[in-house]
């Protein structure tokens, strides 16, 4: 999901929403229309069934009336045989809905010598035919149409039957018992029957077509199918035997309700029939029959289904159109973005001359592109600036490096400096800070026996300090070689430096000259840190400062010369403030105290080793903190007769 593009995300979200909406509309429409159709169907089926039943009932009712009238008139005992035959024939002639009519008497009732008396008029080939029923093979007293009204004492409609004599026509018979008064007693005299062909009924029901496969069916009093589109069922099956066949208890219950004369609109599941259907049933007024009307559900709902299908199709089409539209629009939005993204990557790779994609419109993407263009130009300008600045800086830095190299080059670096001299041992080191500083040291023979050594520290840093240091060193050497004592040397050098020193630069200096034969030392100090004197085997001590100012600022200043005596093994250690002011990361200074402690702890010191050990000690103390000042150390050890 997160890796999908904007177009895909947009499409997914919008289309999901649209899909849900369309689905909801279709489902709601289907459900609602379905309900309406079902309601209508129920109403229509009720009307249809009622209309059908009333038509059937009307016919049966008129037949009943007719037969009842005849039964009533037969109670008149004066009717002759001929009159009875005539009555029978006339009624049939005047009532086309009656197929046949019989007036059957009890044995030996009308004519004492005749077992059977049952005139029967019936229609045959468009005419009215006549026969007398009864005989050894047709003992009508035991027929249902005779026996049941006799036993029950009221009229009945017989169960429909296929009349073999009438060419397999489906018939039902209305049978009315009639009575006569014999010896003051009302006795059963016989039965009047009216046969009604049910072919018209079958036809009428067959004409009922509901949708394509819907139909009507009629059940007899015992549940036998009297009319049904399936000919195999008619007169063969009852609704209960069908229920047994398809193993449907639901159908069985429906059958019971139908025979009980109830009305209902029910849904039949597909255990009852091959598809789902609705059934409306209602009882008839006569005959104990009931009518069922079957509505095929799928056909009933065909219009709704079609509507839903069309709606779904339109929805689907709209869906596809919308999808296309969203993809197109979002492509149009995101294409410049992806081009811009590609361009940004290229810019990141360093191609600042890249031509950014053109945008015509002034929307968010257009503004983004413009911002990008501005950024590109700024970046380019900045990088150009940076390049030239860096170039200038690098030039300066390299010049400074060269200046520093030159500066360091003028200091004596070769040790042992005087390998053929046993009278003394001298060792010096300078650890330059990152920036060009102004420390200096020097040592040289003034004459055959006098050896001059010095350490100085020019104020400030950088090229001016370096120049000042070079000048100082040169002056010192030149002045010293004139054979002056240290005080005179510093006084002279001070004067030379102070002249025209507008920048107020100055230098601290400690300069000493030793007679290498006697160990007599003369020294002067122009504001320099007090050096350490380490007598051989004794405790080290500071060479006390004289309180005389730094050189280079006060013209005409006179420096004093002091004297001291060095015994063999003694060391004079001169250093710059870079030693005592070396700092560790906790901003602590190495300090005079730590220096003095180091010196005290040095046992049988030897000048080069002393300098190297101290250097190591300072480095250990600094723990890698950046060195801010030059660290300059010079150790002069007088040997005299002392063995090296």
């Amino acid at each position, binding site marked *: 999901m997160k890796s999908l593009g904007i177009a895909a995300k947009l499409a997914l979200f919008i289309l999901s929403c649209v899909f849900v909406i369309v689905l909801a509309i279709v489902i709601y429409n289907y459900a609602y229309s379905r309900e309406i159709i079902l309601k209508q169907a129920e109403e229509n089926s009720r009307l249809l069934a009622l209309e059908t039943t009333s038509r059937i009932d009307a016919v049966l009712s008129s037949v009943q009336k007719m037969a009842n009238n005849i039964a009533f008139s037969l109670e008149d005992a004066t009717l002759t045989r001929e009159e009875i035959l005539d009555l029978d024939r006339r009624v049939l002639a005047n009532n086309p809905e009656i197929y046949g009519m019989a007036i059957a008497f009890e044995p030996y009732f009308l004519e004492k010598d005749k077992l059977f008396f049952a005139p029967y008029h019936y229609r045959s080939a468009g005419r009215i035919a006549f026969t007398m029923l009864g005989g050894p093979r047709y003992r009508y007293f035991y027929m249902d149409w005779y026996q049941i009204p006799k036993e029950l004492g009221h009229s009945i409609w017989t169960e429909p039957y296929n009349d073999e004599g009438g060419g397999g026509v489906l018939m039902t018979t209305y049978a009315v018992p009639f009575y006569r008064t014999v010896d003051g007693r009302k006795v059963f005299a016989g039965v009047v029957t009216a046969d009604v062909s049910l072919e018209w009924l079958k036809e009428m029901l067959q004409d009922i077509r509901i949708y394509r496969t819907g139909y009507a069916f009629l059940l007899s009093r015992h549940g036998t199918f009297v009319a049904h589109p399936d000919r195999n069922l008619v007169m063969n099956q009852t609704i209960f035997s069908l229920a047994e066949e398809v193993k449907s208890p639901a159908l069985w219950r429906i059958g019971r309700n139908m025979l009980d004369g109830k009305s209902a609109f029910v849904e039949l599941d597909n255990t009852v029939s091959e598809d789902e259907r609705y059934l409306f049933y209602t009882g008839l007024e006569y005959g104990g029959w009931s009518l069922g009307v079957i509505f095929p559900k799928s056909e009933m709902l065909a219009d709704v289904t079609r509507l839903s299908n069309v709606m779904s199709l339109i929805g689907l089409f709209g869906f596809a159109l919308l999808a296309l539209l969203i993809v197109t629009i979002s492509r149009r939005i995101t294409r410049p973005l992806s081009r811009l993204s590609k361009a940004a990557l290229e810019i990141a790779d360093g191609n600042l001359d890249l031509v950014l994609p053109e945008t015509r419109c002034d929307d968010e993407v257009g503004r983004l592109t413009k911002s990008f263009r501005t950024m590109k130009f700024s970046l380019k300008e900045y990088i150009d600036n940076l390049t030239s600045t860096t170039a200038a800086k690098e030039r300066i830095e390299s010049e400074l490096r060269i200046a520093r190299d030159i500066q360091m080059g003028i200091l004596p670096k070769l040790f042992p400096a005087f390998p053929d001299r046993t009278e003394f041992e001298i060792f010096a080191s300078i650890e330059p800070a990152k920036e060009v500083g102004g420390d200096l040291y020097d040592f040289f023979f003034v004459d055959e026996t006098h050896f001059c050594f010095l350490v100085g520290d020019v104020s400030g840093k950088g090229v001016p300090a370096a120049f000042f240091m070079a000048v100082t060193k040169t002056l010192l050497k030149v002045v010293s070689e004139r054979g002056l004592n240290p005080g005179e040397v510093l006084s002279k050098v001070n004067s030379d430096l102070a002249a025209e020193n507008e920048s107020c630069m100055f230098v601290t200096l400690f300069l000493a000259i030793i007679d290498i034969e006697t160990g007599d030392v003369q020294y002067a100090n122009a504001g320099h840190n007090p050096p350490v004197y380490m007598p051989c085997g004794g405790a080290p001590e500071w060479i006390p400062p004289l*309180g005389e100012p730094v050189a280079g600022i006060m013209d005409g200043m006179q420096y004093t010369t002091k004297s001291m005596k060095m015994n063999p093994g003694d060391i004079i250690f001169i250093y710059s403030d870079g030693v005592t002011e070396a700092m560790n990361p906790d901003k602590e200074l190495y300090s005079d105290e730590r220096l003095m402690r180091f010196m005290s702890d040095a046992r049988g010191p030897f000048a080069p080793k002393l300098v190297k050990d101290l250097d190591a000690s300072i480095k250990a103390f600094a723990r890698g903190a950046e060195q801010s000042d030059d660290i300059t150390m010079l150790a002069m050890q007088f040997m005299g007769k002392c063995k090296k």
Partner: protein
Amino acid sequence: MEFSTTKKDGALVVAVEGRMDAITTTEFDAQSQTWLADGEKKVIADLSGLEYISSAGLRSILAAAKQLKGSGGQLVFCGLSGMVEEVFNVSGFAAMFTIHKTLDDALAG
């Protein structure tokens, strides 16, 4: 390094705190240029809050004093202690400038 300047009895009191080394002295230089431009005559540098001073710091002080002197003014010091006092002594600055023990002494002198 931090500065705070106050006017007191016609003198400009500059209290310097922290460290004065090659990097921070440029601020002192800039500060001193403003005194000169304002035509200050008596400037008292109160160094009681100063912890450390390098040779570059000394140079800045020296340059300021020289310029002030050229315009008829005077730079005096007070409140020196510890390492700073030692440096002043070693470098001979103590001999070159007027140094008072306290600020009140400097104002009185």
